[in-house]
């Protein structure tokens, strides 16, 4: 029994964290809010070089052949940095699907290297497609099977999102587009879609944990120096107790997320339950942290000139995706027999 990460896993985490510190400071996140694509190709390539994008792809196909347990801390760090690029969709959901679908050619190589961005549709309980305009191909789970739709993806209409770094599109008539590349049908598709859903939901949970950790850090920094009434506002017990409650929810969600990563890695019988519990607890903890952080900051947190809002909005945008808390709690209930 051991609920902790190996030295290798921690070292990989530290390396990725360093990359984000250097290449994905808040200014980069901020510029993604205003850029056309919302993407950072240079950073994306470096993630490819480090092996992050192909981490879950086996070595025979150019990946690292590692497990979800090796990936989970990297996703958390991506959340900490509020990485604008679609790491969960691309590396956690789509890349392993390409292998499962037998599409192991150039598209996969580029995906592993960071030379392209893959899109997904129909896996995440969402009606929209992220990066539909820029993605090299779309892996789509439709009623009759999983399809691979090459660029361009129909006529995507950009949607206005509160988290402006995330590019969401409506794509009409996906099923007619799908005719160009249907590759897996019915039963097999259902299994693969279920596996991909769990990966995406847990990846999102880890991302949320990271986002929330950064909110707490930003808040602790600010309220430790911000003076009112002659003392730091962070010294007021009313604020301390709120911060402690938020921290507690987050800290108790973390081992739940890590356990679910192990359940995916080991194909545990309880994987659905474990992933759902992780997503539900991470989402609720992150929202509590975000709310508490905004309130603790006061007016400065309520402006777009200060960084907090990018983490805040990302949390509320992501929390209901890949299944709402309500949906996941219901799945936990089924698993525990009520």
């Amino acid at each position, binding site marked *: 029994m051991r609920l902790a990460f190996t030295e290798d896993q921690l070292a990989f985490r530290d390396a990725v964290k360093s990359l984000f510190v250097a290449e994905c400071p808040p200014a980069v996140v901020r510029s993604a809010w205003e850029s056309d694509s919302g993407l950072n190709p240079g950073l994306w390539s470096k993630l490819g070089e480090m092996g992050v994008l192909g981490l879950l792809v086996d070595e025979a196909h150019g990946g690292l052949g590692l497990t979800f347990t090796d990936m989970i801390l990297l996703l958390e760090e991506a959340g900490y940095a509020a990485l604008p690029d679609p790491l969960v969709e691309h590396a956690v959901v789509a890349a392993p699907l390409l292998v499962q679908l037998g599409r192991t050619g150039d598209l996969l190589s580029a995906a592993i290297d960071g030379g392209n961005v893959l899109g997904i549709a129909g896996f995440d*309980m*969402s*009606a*929209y497609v992220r990066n539909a305009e820029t993605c090299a191909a779309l892996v789509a789970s439709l009623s009759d099977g999983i399809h691979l739709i090459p660029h361009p993806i129909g006529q995507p209409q950009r*949607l*206005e*999102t*509160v*988290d402006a770094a*995330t590019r*969401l599109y409506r794509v009409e008539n996906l099923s007619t587009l799908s005719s160009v590349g249907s590759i897996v049908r019915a039963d097999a598709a259902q299994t693969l879609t279920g596996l991909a859903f769990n990966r995406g939901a847990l990846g999102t949970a880890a991302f949320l944990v990271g986002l929330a950790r950064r909110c707490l850090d930003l808040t602790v920094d600010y309220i430790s120096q911000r*003076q*009112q*009434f002659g003392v730091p*506002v962070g010294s*007021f017990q*009313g*604020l301390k107790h709120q911060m402690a409650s938020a921290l507690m929810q987050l800290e108790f969600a973390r081992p739940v997320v890590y356990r679910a990563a192990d359940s995916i890695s080991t194909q545990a019988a309880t994987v659905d339950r474990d992933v759902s519990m992780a997503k539900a607890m991470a989402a609720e903890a992150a929202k509590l942290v975000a709310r508490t952080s*905004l*309130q603790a900051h*006061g*007016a400065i947190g*309520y*402006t*777009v*000139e200060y960084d907090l*809002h990018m983490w*805040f909005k990302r949390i*509320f*945008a*992501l929390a*209901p*995706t890949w299944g*709402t808390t*309500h949906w996941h709690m219901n799945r936990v209930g089924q698993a525990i027999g009520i």
Partner: protein
Amino acid sequence: MDLTWSDAEEEFRAEAREWLTRNVPKGLPSGDTHEGFALHRDWERLLFANRWAVVSWPTEYGGRGATLWEWLIFEEEYYRAGGPQRVTQNGIFLLAPSIFTFGTPAQQGAILPRMAAAEDLWCQGWSEPNAGSDLAGVACRGMRMDGGWVINGQKTWTTRGAFCTHIFAIVRTDPASERHRGLTYILIPLDTPGVTVRGFGRLDGDEGFAEVFFEDAFVADDAITGGVVLGGEGKGWSVAMATAGSERGLTLRSPGRFSATASRLIELYRQKLPEGDPLLRTRIIQAWMEAEAYQLYTLSTVTKLADGGEAGAESSINKIWWSELDVKLHETALDLLGPDAGLEGPWNKGWQFSLSGPIYAGTNEIQRNIAAERLLGLPRK
């Protein structure tokens, strides 16, 4: 106990409803942009032209001399009809009560009608980078000169400052003073040379906040007819606290607004989940009950005021209640929208707006201190 409206009140309601139903503009953009603000100003002028801008004010200043009860009825009808948040609210709800209490007749005559008519647009100049919850930390200085005041310093978090014409500011006029002494409440035209306004984005990205910089800005005593000082030199704290009582109290947040939001939430539930959902239903019932409780609490406060009493420290829990209720109403709506919650839209916009409620007008932490110390009598230290 008499929870019915009089015939006269019902007539007033009918008149308000009829006019509002025909005139409330639909789909007005945010009032926190230059373009949007201009449209909202037009709406305020239409309200004024029909004497709906400030119903509770005396007729000489553009009101109807309406009772508090009629004011409540108007607000209820205003929000029921889908009327937008009032861009003039910092003037008519925050500054005006102080003008009524502390202004000279000359100031009242000069300021109030133009404010009601949305000719002069007032913003609040209280907060500074280092004086937020701790208002007594104001550092912006006013120096007495022959015929006026020279102002130096900075104000910030000034709502809609970039679109207004005037600011009501608290400045330190006694350089030797500390904390809440030596402050003066000064009325300043924003086109005064030496005043610079820089708008910046609120949470939703609209330019709803502003910084206001004063660099040797000379405010002549007659820049406002009747004088630019409200309540006398050095009386700024008392005037501000009276205004804050009004800001934090009844007048700013009428129950009609939250009841209207609760009704829209029920509509959204029916539309999004026609087959029902027990959990979300319970949260909607809870939110509806809390909006209704706010209405009843307000009726009880207005009864007290009508009897000649004061709202007093109860304003603290009143402010906590409406601000937390507003967040709850909108969060429930976002949960109803599920993954669509992340898309821009009126509920998301309203949610982001609601998040300011627990922060401004005295944070809810400050309000809980006030409730604990003044309502419960717990020891300050």
